[in-house]
Structures are given as C-alpha cells and as structure tokens.
C-alpha cells in the first residue's frame, strides 16, 4: 500500500539517523511505503524495526509492509518547544495505534479526534522524508 506524499519545503528540523538496518524503512518512507520487521520465530511485528525481536529476542526477522492506517490514541498541541522546532510552533503531535497492533508516535496534521481513523502520510523534505498522521474522511 502506498501512502500520499506531501512535498514539504525546507529541511527536517531534527533529522533521524539511519543505520544499515533501518535504511530499508526510510527508503520505503521516501517512496510512500511503510514497513517494519516481524519476527520469524514468534511472528510478532515490531516498531521501530529492529534486528532483534524485542519479544523473544530471536535474530531472525523479516521486513513486512504496513497498512499505514490506524486510530489516533491521543494527541497534544505543543506551544513551547525545543529551539529547533521554534518555527513550527504551535504544532500537534500524537500517538497512533496502527491496524497491525503497533503503537507509534508522530506529527498529526489536522484536528482528528481521539479513536478516529488516521492514515500515515509522507512529508518529503528537501533533505529526506518524515511521516505524519492525518484523519481519513468518511
């Protein structure tokens, strides 16, 4: 499943680091697909993607595609933030429970209410991608 890509001017305020292991995740995000790792032994997915399953500590994991959909568990609007985010203030961040049973934290682009459906979108900055959540209408 491919998620919408929103071209976003400027550079990311606090770019995430990328390892050899997480590169497939970020490469996927750049093209609109969200992936993570699932354990071959216990079959449980993990987020962020990890080379070791946090549940059973197996080192046999496989990349899987995520639906990019979930529900907004909670959110807040930040009015006082770290120096690098000053130009974004105020901004909304939230916690999303993905359909695959994974909880993530990200920006929220709209006023979606709690427990309502959201989708992940790609924010394509000049220096690389980030992602965010927004409500799904209907």
């Amino acid at each position: 499943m491919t998620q919408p890509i929103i071209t976003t001017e400027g550079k990311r305020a606090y770019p995430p680091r990328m390892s050899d292991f997480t590169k497939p995740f970020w490469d996927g995000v750049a093209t609109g697909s969200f992936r993570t790792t699932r354990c071959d032994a216990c079959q449980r997915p993990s987020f962020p993607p990890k080379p070791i399953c946090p549940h059973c500590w197996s080192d046999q994991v496989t990349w899987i595609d995520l639906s990019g959909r979930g529900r907004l568990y909670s959110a807040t609007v930040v009015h006082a933030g770290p120096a690098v985010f000053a130009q974004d203030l105020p901004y909304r961040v939230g916690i999303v429970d993905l359909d695959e049973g994974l909880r993530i934290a990200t920006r929220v682009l709209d006023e979606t209410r709690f427990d309502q459906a959201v989708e992940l979108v790609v924010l394509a900055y000049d220096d690389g991608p980030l992602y965010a959540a927004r409500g799904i209408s209907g």
Partner: protein
Amino acid sequence: MTSNKVSILGGAALPVGKLQGLSDAGTQHLEHEVLAKLIVEALADAGLEKEDVGSMILTLPRPYTQQKYFATFMANYMRLPCDGLVMEVMGNGMTPALTFQTAVDQVRLGRTKVALALGINFETGTPAPEHMMSSMRATGDVDFHVPFGFTPISWYAMDAVRYIHEHNSSREDLAMVAVKNRAHAMHNPIAQFRKPMTLDDVLAQRPIVEPLGLFEVPGRGDGAVCLVIADEDVAKETGKPYVNVRGEGFYHEGAHQISEVPNDMIAFEAAQQAGAKAMAGAGIGPDDLDLAEVYAPCTIVEVLVAEALGLCPVGQGARQAASGDTSIGGRIPICTSGGLLSRGHPAYVTALYSYFEVLEQLRGRGAERQVTDAELGLVCTELGNYNAAMVHILEAVA
C-alpha cells in the same frame, strides 16, 4: 547484632529557586559551596560527625555545571575519605531516587554505617528552548520520536487528553491539583511558588502542551538536598527521632514513553507494580498511609499515580483533589510540600526533596503543613512517562 534496618536520620534542603547565573555584582552561586553548607547542616540535623560518614552518593549534576566529576570533587572539597562508594548517579527523573536507593544499599550491604544521599541541580541559567534540546533526547527515541517535536511534558499532556476522554473529566478537574498543591506550598518555606492561586488563575495561563497551561506544568528551578542515611543502630544511638525505610519497590515496564504494543497508557503499570511491592514489603495497604509525596510534573500525573497506587479510586483522582481528600487534613494528603508544581522541580534532585518532606512530616516538623500524627509516608518517583517507578514506604520512629 545489627537490626538490618536502614534509617533516614537527618537532612537539609535549599529553598528551590533561580540561583544560576551572574549576579549584579558579577558573582555566581557555585554548586560545591552551596552543597558543602548543606552537608554540614544535614549532619548537624542528624546528630552525627564528619568522621561517621563513609559514603557519598551524589546525583549527576546538569551538564551546565562546569565542575565535572562532581562526586570526587566534593570528596576533596570536604576532605572526606570514604571506604563506601563515592559516585554519581544518573537516571533521568529518577536520578535522585536511585541516588537515595544506592545510599540505602551501601548501608544495608555493610559498606558503611552512614552514607550521604545528596545532589545539586542548577539549570536555570539555560533558557527552556535550549534546555529542551537535551531533555527531548531523554524522553523519546532520538530517531523515531524526537524528529516530530515531542517534549518531555508532551507525553503527560497526552495522558491528560486520554484521561479526560475516558473518565468524562475536564481540564478544570485536573487543574484543582495545582490549586491544592499551591495551598500546601504556601506553608512550605523552601517552596519556589508560594503566592495564593485560584482555579481561575490556573485556567487563565497560556497553553504549554494542550490542554495544560503554564501553571499545570512544572516551572524550572535550581535546588540542592543532602540526606543522611544510616544503619538503625547508629540512628538509635543519637537519641533523636528518625525514619526507617520500611518498604521498597521498583518496576520498569520495558517500554519508554509509549509501549509499541498498545496498552492502557494511563494505567501507570510501573507505579502499580512498584507500589504493590513496596506496600507488601512493609506489610501495609494504601489505607494505612498518612501521606504520600509523589513525583508528578503535571496535574494529570498526580492523578494517575494516586490512582495507580490505590490512594484514590480510578477515575476519581482529580475530583478528590477538588473535594479535599488529598489535601492536608484530608483522607490521604498528597504532596504536602507543594509537589513539583509549587514546591518546585529541580529535576535531578526533585525526589530528594520528596524524601526530605516525608522525613520532616514523620518527625513532626511540618509546622503549618504538618499532617497530624503522621507515622507512615510513601514516596513515589518515576522516569519517562511513568515507564519505571520506584516506591519507598517510610516509617516514623520516635
């Protein structure tokens, strides 16, 4: 024959305030000078001598403290040879509680009869937006949370939103915690914020992390505390009132800020587990406690931890602040010091202020904020979004 019990025998604490930075005369408060005076004051309070002390466990100072390796610097500054540990402890908001626990363990292990648990947190010389550049990296995954702009208290705000949503509560309900704690702080001479404050005052402040405004989140402050921890045999010999550590509990839920497996984020499982363990060890239940001093940087956090510890029914924690249940004179007074919101929150020493408050209360030295006949007190501390909690049950010994 040793009783094997560990006691808190004395203490001293600096009034919380803004001390870091240059004065008009171009001078500064220096951390080691401030702490040296507190050490002497605390030992006098304990009725002990310099030669009795065999270990110094310090909180790690903030990175803004110029003097590095502060513990060994202090050992020199006080010219204090030790055969118990001299070290600094770091554990985010739990730093001072881990410091206290390490000092207790030094005594329990027999490494020393008397240990100091102490520290100083100077940070107000650094503006909040700059300070958050560091603190945001402690309260989130640097690669998968921080890039979105989460701040330490943004997680608590999301707890508040969820609580209001699930329990049909309101910002007004939660804000009564701040009003209640201010009323306590007005009677605490070492509290940072002591002016009278109404609910309207709280609600009128600018938003910081919605729905929480300026008076529902902690201000920033500098502070320092020294506690004297001793084998109970030493405590008994002094003939002074003291406090015993009667129960201890720690639990880390194996998650940081959020659990990647969706859970009930506002259940504060770590506080539940650590509290249950500490109370079981002490052979008591929540109803036996006379007061509780909990680590709650925001109004909502006090509500959630009070519910997790069984001090208030789930869903009722905020309303019980409004009803007076958690006030001095109420069913179970919480944060008689004024808590993090009014006593103040110099983070790396905050919990040392909590132990100090319970020490004072259990020795009957709470003056106008004294809880009548206080014999059993609880201290709860945390890190992250209560991903880990440490609980101590303290008992008065006359």
